[in-house]
């Protein structure tokens, strides 16, 4: 095999006194920035006008933009029932197989509903393909990302945990997905 020689230019090592001065200056510069922020914050805090962007989570929370994808939730109609008809398209679209649905029949006007609707949030990757596949606008991505639980079993969310009233989602998500998916 032929070898190819590439000549690279490296800066010559700094002379000792110069190197000490330069790195010492960088340390001082960093300390200056940290100190400046500290005093400015303290001054702002004392005046009652904070100037930092730290959010005191979980007491304070940010408002997410409509396109933000948190965990998927089921849309609850005004009569308290889910909009989902257990068609299984989200189950099929899901790349991580985290959705499990068992359909059943009722006497209601919408004759089919999910008897079981489980999402394993530890497997869900918030990709939103279920939302895109849904023909009924029944599963949408919420702004909730808090899926921590004390056991593996606790990360499986059942139908009752997933239901969110439609009016809560109207502003945040419905408008966005209707525009995005051209419905």
């Amino acid at each position, binding site marked *: 095999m032929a070898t190819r020689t590439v000549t690279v230019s490296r800066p010559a090592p700094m002379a000792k006194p110069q190197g000490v001065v330069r790195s010492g200056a960088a340390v001082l510069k960093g300390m200056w920035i940290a100190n400046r922020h500290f005093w400015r914050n303290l001054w702002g805090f004392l005046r009652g006008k904070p100037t930092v962007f730290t959010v005191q989570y979980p007491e304070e929370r940010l408002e997410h933009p409509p396109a933000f994808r948190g965990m998927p939730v089921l849309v609850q109609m005004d009569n308290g029932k889910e909009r989902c*008809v257990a*068609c*299984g398209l989200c189950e*099929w679209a899901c790349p991580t197989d985290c959705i499990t649905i068992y*359909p*059943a029949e009722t006497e209601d006007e919408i004759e*089919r509903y999910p008897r079981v609707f489980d999402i394993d949030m530890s497997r869900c990757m918030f990709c939103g393909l279920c939302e895109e596949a849904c023909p009924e606008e029944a599963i949408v991505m919420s702004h909730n990302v808090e899926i921590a639980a004390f056991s593996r079993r606790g990360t499986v969310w059942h139908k009752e945990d997933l239901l969110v009233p439609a009016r809560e989602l109207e502003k945040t998500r419905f408008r966005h997905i209707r525009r995005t998916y051209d419905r």
Partner: protein
Amino acid sequence: MPKITVDGREIEVAADTMLLPALIEAGIHVPHYCWHPKLSIDGSCRMCQVEVEGSPKLVIACNTPVRDGMVVRTDTPRVANARRGVMELLLVNHPIDCPICDKAGECLLQDYSYNFGTRFTRTEEPRRKLEKRKEIGPRMILDQERCILCRRCVRFCREITKTNELGVFNMGDRSVLDVLPDAPLANDYSMNTADICPVGALETKDFHHKLRVWFLKKTPSICPSCSNGCNITIQHYRNQIWRLMPRRNDAVNDTWMCDHGRLQYAFAHDTNRLRLPMVRRGEQLVASTWDDAVAEASRILRDGVKRSGPERVALLASPHLTNEELFRLAQLADVLQLRHVDTPVVVGQGDDFLIQPEKAANIAGARELGLVPRNGGRDAAGILELARQGSLDVLYVCGSDIARIFDEAVWKAALRAVPQLIVQDLFLEPIAAFATVALPSLSWAEKTGTFTNRKRRVQQIHRALAPVEGQWSDGEIFTRMLAHLSEGRWEFEPAAVFEEITRKYPAYTGLSFAGLGLQGKTLAGVEV
């Protein structure tokens, strides 16, 4: 053989056939709803229209006889336009409730709409409101809105079952599929109408709102419910069977199967199945390991024969086992030199179509492989009688068919009187509970092998469900017993055992496991 030209390609077709089956045979896809290979021609859907040279209008391929030198085109804009028009008309009143329709995914209306239809509807008028979820029989429901009036089901009831339950009522755009109020769709083959329905109008109650069809995995198999050996597809998902569907085999069942056979599958994934071998310790049956239980059963058989001779040992085989397993069981009977061997089978009602009176898939195979009384040995009734008299020391029973054949008093008295009883069955109840050693058996859906039907046709079954980890198949149990009771190396691998069968039994000469294919082969000496 007439030659016709289709889309510029010359093909040879059978004489006296219609154009549509000839095209399908040649691998040219022409969309169709009302035509079915096993039913008469109706010509009502108009979907299979093609262009034939010399004919001013398009013709329907299903009702046009082939003729030598015919020039057919299926790919012209005129044909595409006609198909688009038919699709649009069919969809004018269709509810398009695909998200809740059980047919979605295997629906011809969906498929053809994607392939040949328009994307949008041009009508604004309200769609026809008809009866939905109508119970038309004990096993069937009808959704009249979804029906496209292809009349396949009507012809099925007229020509195949000859019971005439279904009919199209009213005329023109008020036509509606229905049954008469006093004549529900209750024949023994009613669920086939759901298979042949190209849309979701006819649905079986058994599969209604159960699972979307695209999740189902399909494994070719044979119906275990009677000796006819109908070819079926086991449709399973999450290690559970969701439905059985007939598979076409013109030599056995055409494209049909009976309702009874179709509904017999829940036992295979029943959670109460016996999954661990049990050995009796005093009054109690306690779970054991496979090695220990089979060694114990082998010891009981060997000691029984050694102590009191093969006269006082009897074997009842099961007609639900595969040929390979029965072959090993027959070898076991040979090694022990048993005379009292039989394969009891439940005999019930049959008809002159598919349903056979002998209610087990492999009774013919058991007889073929010699699991019948030998050298003047007793049959099943005689064996139970011997047992009741106390003339048997060891009884080995496979399957629980004796509990269905004989009166409860008879078989219970017999099993109680046997000092050492080995039972191999799917469930602990009814008979394994009496056993000294109870060995779990595998259902037909969990193993690979062959069944021989009543016309001596050998057909393959394939494993659809995974058994419990570490569970031995019936063949494995017999093989390990043989290893305990005789010299030599014994292994159980269905294809290899089938080779052994072909070497030993002249009727099987020339067959091979792989060569059976999906349609099976008949044994030598059978007039076809």
